[in-house]
Every structure is written in structure tokens, then in C-alpha cells.
């Protein structure tokens, strides 16, 4: 891993207005460059807004679409993580996050776990991704996991076992439930979750949440960069737009992994055997 001067664009995208949101991305890129960032992370569905419902097909982009190519071009100035709705050749729509670098797609993550309960309705409109992969960048090995993906322990574990040194989680989390320490109940759960994954998987976790309102739902912000030891290194304000800066130090990753060699002691063979057994039992029904 190389040192990373990272920025998170904690923005409030407009619902379904891609032109306006692209202009917002351009402005945030300027801000990130002015603060000498080397990598800029945007929240989930940063180009489209979140509660799209029947707007999904209208807001969707194939990777060849001019708007998507414009985003790629923007990554010539600084590597970017952006969120958008991807339409594949079979006209399936994905909640996608792309790592863009030097004008091209370095990695595309299609959200795997689509929340479809409570306030959420994603699986009604979107297809679910079928892979979780870490990938190599100029800075080191990174994985993208979108919002709800991080609430399924296997997802961050897989990404980390695949060698990720930095887990980047673009998110669009609407606040709900009475908060005691954080502004909402679920915000507190998020903060415990990302710090726990960082701690137990000994990776950096970059949590990029959005702000703003859609139909009365309030996205709570509070984006955060967590050290491999589980300590917040940088924390954005709740409920307000912000450009958050943090420096990711490879030396810290090394020191944490020396002190806490959990990844060294992982038993993937055992995990695989037991998982195969559990699947077999579930399938055969006893």
C-alpha cells in the first residue's frame, strides 16, 4: 500500500437530475484538488440520488453512455469512486459504484445486498450483483462495498481475505430511530459497524455517506475514515455537506497487522469446509 491523501465528497445529490449532479461532482473535484487530495470518494448513487423508484430506467447509464464517459474523463484529474445506476446489455439495472482512474473504469462493483424492507425497496427496481472482489490500484489493493453490503459480515470478510487494504463503502443512509450518541439510531449502528470491521479485519474503512432530503427522509452524513485499529481518523459533520480529508498511512496498516495478526491466522480452508457443509445441510434439509 502507498500513502493516500484521500477526500470524501459528502454531497446532497438531486433526485434524478444527472446534469446537475455531474456539475456538483465537477465542483467537488476542484475542491478536492485544491486540498491536494489524490483520491476522491463520492456516496452511493452520487450521480442520480437514491429513492429513484420508477425513475431507475430513466436515470440508468450503460458504460458507453456519454454521461458515464464524462465521469471517466473527470477521473483524468483525480481517481474517483462514483455511484450510478448501471444498465447492462440485458437491460438489468444495478446499483453500481465505479472506481475510475485515468479516464477508465478500474473496477465496477454492483451492490450485492439490496435492502428491501422498511423504508427500502431496492430489489423491486434493481438486480443484485454477484461478485465481491478486491482490485489493484496505484495506491494498493482496494475493495468497494456499497452501503447494505457492509451489514452482511461475509462481504467485508471476503473483501479483506481477497487482500483489500482499504474498504471503501459509498452509502446513502436515511436516518431513522431515536439516536442517543449519533443523530439517529441507525447512525450509531453504522459507526459501531465500520469501526468493528476496520478493527477485526485490520483494514482501513472509508465510509462515504450523503446528506440532504428525499421525500422527507434525511441522509445523515457523518462520513468517516477508520484506521485499521478501529479508530476514527477523520469524521465529517452530521447533516451538512462537507469535503472530508484524511491521510492513509501504510505504516499504520503494517503496525496494526503486526500487533494484531488476525489475517495471518485466518482459516479459509476451515471456513470453506464448514460453509460447504452448511450449504449441503440447508439444501438437503437436516
Amino acid at each position: 500500500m502507498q500513502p493516500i491523501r484521500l477526500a470524501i465528497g459528502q454531497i446532497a445529490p438531486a433526485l434524478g437530475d444527472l446534469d446537475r449532479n455531474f456539475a456538483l461532482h465537477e465542483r467537488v473535484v476542484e475542491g478536492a484538488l485544491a486540498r491536494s487530495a489524490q483520491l476522491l470518494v463520492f456516496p452511493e448513487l452520487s450521480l442520480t440520488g437514491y429513492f429513484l423508484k420508477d425513475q431507475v430506467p430513466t436515470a440508468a447509464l450503460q458504460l458507453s453512455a456519454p454521461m458515464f464517459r464524462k465521469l471517466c474523463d473527470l477521473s483524468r484529474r483525480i481517481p474517483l469512486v462514483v455511484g450510478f445506476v448501471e444498465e447492462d446489455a440485458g437491460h438489468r439495472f444495478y446499483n453500481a459504484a465505479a472506481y475510475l482512474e485515468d479516464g477508465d473504469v478500474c473496477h465496477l462493483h454492483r451492490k450485492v445486498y439490496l435492502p428491501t424492507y422498511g423504508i427500502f425497496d431496492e430489489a423491486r427496481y434493481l438486480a443484485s450483483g454477484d461478485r465481491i472482489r478486491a482490485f489493484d490500484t496505484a495506491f494498493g489493493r482496494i475493495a468497494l462495498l456499497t452501503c447494505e453490503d457492509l451489514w452482511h459480515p461475509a462481504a467485508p470478510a471476503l473483501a479483506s481475505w481477497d487482500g483489500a487494504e482499504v474498504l471503501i463503502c459509498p452509502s446513502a443512509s436515511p436516518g431513522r430511530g431515536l439516536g442517543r450518541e449519533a443523530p439517529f439510531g441507525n447512525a450509531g449502528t453504522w459507526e459501531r459497524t465500520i469501526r468493528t470491521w476496520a478493527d477485526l479485519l485490520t483494514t482501513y474503512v472509508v465510509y462515504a455517506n450523503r446528506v440532504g432530503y428525499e421525500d422527507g427522509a434525511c441522509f445523515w452524513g457523518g462520513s468517516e475514515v477508520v484506521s485499521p485499529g478501529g479508530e476514527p481518523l477523520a469524521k465529517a459533520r452530521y447533516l451538512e455537506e462537507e469535503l472530508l480529508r484524511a491521510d492513509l498511512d501504510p505504516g499504520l496498516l503494517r503496525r496494526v497487522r503486526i500487533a494484531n495478526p488476525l489475517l495471518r491466522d485466518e482459516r479459509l480452508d476451515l471456513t470453506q469446509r464448514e460453509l460447504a457443509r452448511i450449504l449441503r445441510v440447508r439444501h438437503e434439509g437436516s
Partner: protein
Amino acid sequence: MADLTLDCGVVRKVLTGFLANEVRKAGFVRVVVGLSGGVDSSLAAFLAAEALGAENVFGLLMPYRSSSPESAAHAELVVSALGMQSLTVPITPMVDAYFGGFPEADQVRRGNKMARERMSILFDHSARLAALVLGTSNKTELLLGYGTQFGDMASAVNPLGDLYKTQVRQLSRDLKVPQAIIEKQPSADLWEGQTDEAELGFTYEEVDQVLYYLVDQRYEIADLIGRGLFDERIVRAVSRRVQQSQYKRRLPVIAKISSRTIDRDFRYARDWGR
């Protein structure tokens, strides 16, 4: 008992942000609010003044001849505390003219008519002032259906609809709504001596707790009764009211003919294109 205490600093910020955002997205800068002198409309006005500036909040006082003079006095307290513009439009001539043709009407019909008369004046002022109508119904009354459909339940933007009545009081104290308004007996003031709690048959402290367990915590009725926190009669009465008033919280039911029917399989956010 469940702790329904709000973090007022956060909730205040969320609600004022919500008002500023949703009013702007709808293409407006102003709101108009019916001031009854009660805690709900007072809090709504205080929140709107904080979000939009008092100069962008317009209050309407719409007394009927039987309305308590205290209601108007309390509404005036809000107007002067915020330094906002206001206007009094008595509804007695319109309501009395109508019931001249229906002298047998009972107080429920008369009360509903008054609520809808006020609604029609509010929405006319929405056009007159280019101002969105501010909703003042709280979560307790929305869930109980304790409001007039197309009357006081009608609005364009409602900051209070996810706050229980006891939370409205807590937040009102935080925003320094005049004490007399927070402490008085809640009343729809549709007829003399009417109070919410006498009409409902339980106190807001009780019903907010029951609703919180049933709605927010998703307790089954039998499980909640089994916990022994509340009288069985109250739990059953509250859940019956919630169920029976469901229609008031929805659009009118539409007979399905086409392949895309509004609100069934034609689904867009209200903020569509905003």
C-alpha cells in the same frame, strides 16, 4: 416504559433542514400556517420561522364564533413572539350560511365543516401568497385518525407528522414556544369545553407509549397486553382506531384497469425532478 425523549438539537436541525429543503424544491420560499393557539401549530410556526425566516411565515387565525377567546390570544402570542405577519379570517359567516340549510347537523358535522372551511382558506392563501400550506398534524393524531380528512389533515409539507404529541411538547419547550400554550389542555376547540383526552378516552402520555410499542416496535397486540404495561382496553381501543382510520392516511382507493395505476405500479418520489 419506553423512553421517547428526543435529542432536541438534532431533531430541530433535521426538521428545519427538511422545511428549507422541501419548500425550496417545490419552488416556494414562503409557508402559510393556520394558527389555532395550540401547541402543534405553534411549534410548526416556530420551526418554519427558524428554517425560512419569520418574514416568510404567514399565520392565519380563523376563529368561529364559539371558539375560545383564549385560542386567539395564544395564536397572537405566537405571532408577536416570532414577529410574523398574520391575518384573521373569521369562518362564522361561511359555516353558518351553510348550516342554515341543515339546521339538524350535529357537532361532529359542524366541527368537520369548520376544519374544511379553514383548509379551503389556507389553500386559497397558498395561491394568494405563493406560500406552501404547512401541516400541523402530529404522529399521534395521524395514527389515531383524530383529525378531519381534507380538513386539518390537509397540507403540503408537514414537519410534525413523525413526532408523537409528547415529543411535540418536548420540542416546543426547546424552541421556547410560550409556556401557556405548551401547558394547556389540548383541544380541537370545535365546541365549547371539548378536550382531546376526554374525547379520546386516554391521556397522550399513555397513548403515545402504546403507539410506540405497536407501531415503532412492532409489538403484536397480544404480546403488548401480555407485558402488562397497559390496560388491555386501551391497547385494543388504540389498535382499533389505527386500523379503522387507515383510509384517512391514504389516497382514495382507485379501481385498477390499466397496466400502470397511480400509487400501485406508477411509483415516483414526490421529489421527482426536484
